[in-house]
């Protein structure tokens, strides 16, 4: 086994004692109601609703959003994107990243708390867990207790719900890449192809594992954004903060007692903010990178403050500057630069798509012969790949520029191409033998559509060298 020593060393346990990874204590987030949790719930319904419903919406008799991988075409409502348009997808991803930076600089980790798929799906999985196993205390007790019939049934119920939901998620995911109604019909008949089946199971498994088990560990150990988002933070960024000046010294007290008389701050040390935290941190220790800014602690603390008849906001959305009793600047170099870049790129993206030509042309020269001589005529043969990027059929005609008196011969006068298809067209260009010197000549193909769009594509014409 010594030969494989490097393998065992590679994956062996850290026994140095200063392991990066703390032994994980399972987090049992307590469900809490409040302003921000209602907002998060709304976000969950909106985003997941969009995810599950979108593939079923039709547009012009076709699935509205379909990233048709087998056909190599992306349909997004009325727009069709071809592999040639990959640039727009790349630009869109850059735009999305920039938007994330902008929002982070302005409002902190809004993305993490309200919109990240990891958070959103985890939230739904926790609802199902609550439904099957009860509230936080019941769940802790259940996990500690021995395996009874009830425990078994409750766990079974939870996992059944999780698995069904995960499978539906995986099915929907694949439904974005292959027509969803066909996929549904195939599933009903147990007739899905091997690759479809594989991806449905793969994505379901990922959902189940991430939302059911890994949860906050994805944010803490796996998410790159969580690690570098602090680079976009400054003292004017919206954060969730505990008002230490007001809260300390913390301590328990009876209701109706003036805290100042007993020398206490407003924090009654009820630990509610810790119990509701999905990543299991104590916000009173200051802003930590584990904090996903879900605002559960704000809602928890506000409800306690209401009960104690203290003003709300001991834990609140704030900025470092506000906490230091300074003014917060929403407009600052960082946000302005992000905003300007973002608007410029967005404008470029929209214009680029609006100005896209509805057709495209690729030219392949005949590989076998440079030219053919028939009597006094020299002929070059090309295959033109005519791509109709529009959703409706069009007719195209061809001309050639660069050589005077060159004739363009096609099998039919106009070429009819159905919407969204590529048609190979054989084109012969004929030139009188004496009219041109020998060797290669630059030419341009001009394709004219029935809408008047012209596409120009360069190529070469060859004459025999005497």
């Amino acid at each position: 086994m010594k030969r494989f020593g490097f393998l065992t060393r590679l994956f062996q346990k850290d026994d140095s004692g200063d392991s990066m990874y703390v032994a994980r204590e399972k987090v049992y987030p307590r469900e809490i109601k409040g302003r921000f949790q209602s907002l998060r719930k709304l976000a969950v319904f909106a985003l997941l609703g969009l995810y599950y419903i979108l593939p079923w919406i039709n547009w012009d008799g076709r699935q509205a959003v379909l990233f048709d991988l087998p056909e190599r075409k992306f349909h997004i409502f009325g727009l069709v994107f071809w592999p040639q348009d990959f640039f727009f997808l790349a630009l869109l991803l850059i735009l999305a990243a920039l938007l994330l930076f902008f929002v982070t600089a302005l409002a902190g980790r809004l993305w993490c708390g309200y919109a990240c798929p990891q958070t959103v799906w985890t939230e739904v999985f926790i609802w199902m867990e609550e439904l099957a196993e009860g509230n936080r205390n019941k769940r802790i007790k259940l996990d500690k207790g021995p395996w009874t019939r009830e425990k078994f049934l409750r766990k079974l119920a939870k996992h059944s719900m999780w698995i069904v939901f995960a499978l539906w998620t995986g099915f929907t995911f694949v439904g974005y890449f292959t027509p969803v109604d066909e996929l549904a019909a195939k599933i009903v008949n147990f007739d899905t192809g091997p690759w479809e089946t594989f991806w449905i199971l793969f994505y379901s498994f990922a959902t189940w594992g991430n939302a059911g088990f890994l949860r906050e560990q994805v944010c803490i150990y796996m998410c790159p954004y969580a690690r570098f988002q602090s680079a976009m933070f400054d003292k004017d960024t919206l954060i969730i903060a505990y008002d230490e000046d007001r809260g300390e010294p913390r301590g328990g007290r009876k209701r109706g007692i003036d805290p100042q008389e007993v020398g206490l701050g407003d924090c009654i040390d009820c630990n509610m903010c810790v119990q509701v935290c999905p990543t299991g941190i104590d916000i009173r220790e200051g802003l930590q990178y584990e904090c996903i800014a879900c605002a559960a602690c704000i809602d928890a603390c506000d409800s306690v403050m209401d009960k104690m008849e203290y003003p709300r906001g001991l834990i609140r959305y704030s900025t470092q500057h506000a906490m230091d009793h300074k003014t917060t600047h929403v407009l600052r170099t960082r946000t302005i630069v992000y905003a300007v870049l973002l608007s410029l790129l967005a404008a470029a993206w929209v214009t680029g798509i609006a100005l896209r030509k509805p057709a495209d042309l690729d030219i392949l020269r005949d590989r076998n012969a440079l030219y053919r001589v028939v009597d006094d005529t020299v002929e070059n043969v090309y295959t033109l790949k005519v791509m109709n990027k529009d959703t409706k059929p069009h007719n195209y005609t061809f001309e050639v520029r660069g050589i005077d008196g060159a004739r363009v011969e096609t099998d039919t006068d106009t070429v009819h191409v159905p919407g969204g298809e590529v048609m190979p067209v054989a084109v012969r260009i004929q030139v009188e033998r004496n009219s041109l010197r020998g060797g290669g000549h630059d030419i341009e193909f001009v394709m004219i559509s029935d809408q008047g769009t012209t596409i120009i594509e360069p190529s070469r014409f060859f004459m025999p060298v005497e």
Partner: protein
Amino acid sequence: MGGSGHDTPAVPAWLLRAIIIGWSSFAVAAVATMLFFATFDPVVLAQAATFPFELTRFAGYTLGFFMLWALTAGASVISMFLLRSLELHPRRQR
């Protein structure tokens, strides 16, 4: 750590390393797959291969993705091995 939950077995460090390598290489492979197959059609590639074979696009994308994932994960594992074996080297330890 907060919460008064009971202790579950810690995720062992080697597993976490495997998860981190697996996940980061997954993300990079996904981007590489998009770039690659936006440029090349797997059906045409399979026909033009040294040993031409038939395959559907879906199969081509899937195989291509897993090949890229294997490559990126392989590079990650080697990088980590080199870094870690250096750290674990007796003379390098503080």
